[in-house]
């Protein structure tokens, strides 16, 4: 049995959860077993997870699981894993998945590989999986030797695939202590774009922007394609942009389908966080800017002229 931890927001399953089910389904097939999803709390239509490959959905409702706390949630998931004899537990590589994975590793005496980005190879008794290390500058293959294996799945590594059928639903009672953490406030960004770690399209800008008052052209471009905005570190350090936009080795690491960088030189620490993007477009007026070496498409020109032109061209193509 391969067990997937899923999460819903406002009733809707998160994309990271659907990716994890597709990944879990394929892993289960390779191991000759089935894939089950665990849902804690409320979600609309849990049976729909069958579409993505879950043959069974286990729902848990317990008053002590009213808000996310890695301690209580890990306890609940471990109980499901044990009662279902899970050989593999898969979680999304996001803030909750990461904090659960380590705890589950200890509870289930299981080896943990975080941010796996390819399907595992299962041969005989051996279980191996790859992940990026050194901020994307290398790939490591890990072998997990324990009976139970825990993986967190790096976002945007697989696309959710539908085609399965409805899943059977069962609810399970778990025994968890009250949470020792209270949530005082949750502030979510307004707006309809995806949060940066999950975004498929990202428009990013750096010190070449000269000042925060010039960001309008970046926001217009982002809006035209429905992208999330990001920035280089110095830009967030000096307060031109909020710190959650900072991408790179010491900021958020992302792997969107498209990363457009304007006025960013492409320092190695910046590249470390973005070089797993599927397609990179660099706009820089300096032909020697190191970022061009990491780009798929480059435009060597003044960004203040090129960015609005690109926005217009996109609007025209979409019209």
């Amino acid at each position, binding site marked *: 049995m391969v067990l997937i931890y899923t999460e819903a927001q406002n009733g809707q399953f998160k994309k990271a959860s659907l990716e994890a089910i597709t990944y879990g389904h394929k892993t289960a097939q390779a191991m000759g077993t089935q894939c089950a999803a665990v849902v804690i709390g409320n979600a609309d239509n849990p049976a729909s997870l069958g579409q993505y490959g879950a043959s069974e959905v286990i729902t848990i409702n317990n008053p002590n699981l009213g808000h996310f706390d890695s301690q209580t949630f890990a306890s609940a998931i471990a109980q499901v894993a044990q009662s279902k004899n899970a050989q593999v537990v898969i979680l999304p590589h996001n*803030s909750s998945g990461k*904090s659960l994975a380590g705890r589950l590793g200890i509870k289930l005496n299981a080896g*943990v590989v975080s941010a796996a980005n390819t399907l595992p190879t299962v041969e005989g008794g051996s279980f191996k999986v790859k992940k990026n290390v050194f901020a994307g500058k290398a790939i490591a*293959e890990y*072998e997990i030797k324990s009976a139970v294996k825990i993986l967190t799945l790096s976002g945007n590594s697989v696309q959710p695939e539908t085609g399965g059928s409805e899943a059977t639903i069962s609810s399970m009672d778990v025994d968890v202590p009250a949470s*020792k953490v209270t949530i005082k406030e949750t502030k979510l960004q307004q707006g309809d774009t995806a*949060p940066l*770690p999950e975004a498929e399209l990202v428009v990013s800008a750096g010190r070449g922007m000269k000042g925060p008052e010039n960001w309008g052209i970046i926001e217009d471009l982002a809006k035209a394609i429905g992208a999330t905005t990001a920035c280089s570190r110095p830009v967030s350090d000096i307060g031109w942009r909020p710190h959650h936009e900072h991408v790179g080795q010491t900021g958020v690491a992302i792997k969107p*389908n498209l990363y457009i960088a304007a006025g960013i030189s492409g320092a190695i620490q910046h590249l470390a966080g973005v070089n797993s993007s*599927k397609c990179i477009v660099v706009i820089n007026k300096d032909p020697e800017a190191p970022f061009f070496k990491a780009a798929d498409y480059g435009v060597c020109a003044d960004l203040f002229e090129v960015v609005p032109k690109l926005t217009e061209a996109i609007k025209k193509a979409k019209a």
Partner: protein
Amino acid sequence: MKILVCISKTPETTAKIAFKDGNTAYDENGVQFIMNPYDEWYALVRAVELKEANGGSVTAINVGPAANDVVIRKALAIGADDAIRVDADPQSAMFVAKQIAAQAQGYDLILTGKETIDYNGSSVGAMVAELLDLPYISYGTNLVIAGTTATITRDIEGGEEISEAGLPLVISAAKGMAEQKIPNMRGIMMAKRKPLNVVPAVAADDLAVATSFSLPSGKSEVKMIDPDNMDELVRLLQEEAKVL
């Protein structure tokens, strides 16, 4: 208040990445090592600030070989009072967490960095918390302690969350929790006299280890686009790259 800060050592951010022994091990030859930035800039500096404000002590802990003493001395120069080095060559997060947990009795607060920038595991903090049966709050960007209560702001996807928990607990530190601090001459001199206790490792299995490494396949040559022809770029993004 007794604070334990977990510090790890990572290659300097511009270090070349190469492998040896048939691509089974990282080649450390000629590589400069630094304290993991999240551990140094955020976890350690905030711990020192909290000690200065509330009294108590800061202990830095590292699981690693004697070569790591340079990095540990830097932590002492930044303001840790003493340090523990668990003498071992760690191969997995689980091994590291078990070593730290074995030394972590009696602390009110245990801080880690949000992740190491080499293996990017982001798992040691959660493992330590589980081993000690403590709450764990990841990606803290702000930490205030009043009496025995910690108030933490943390990053979540698409926003932030403010939570409260009683001590003791484990927190991982992200950008925002503190500002990088350069050790001064006095700190560096004092660090030489501060205790660095070397202790043997406890038995622990490595359940998941890296067995081979490879480098990503190189990017193909960049295609330069005429700045006056953004229609062409849009066409390529739609038809060739298929990302729009």
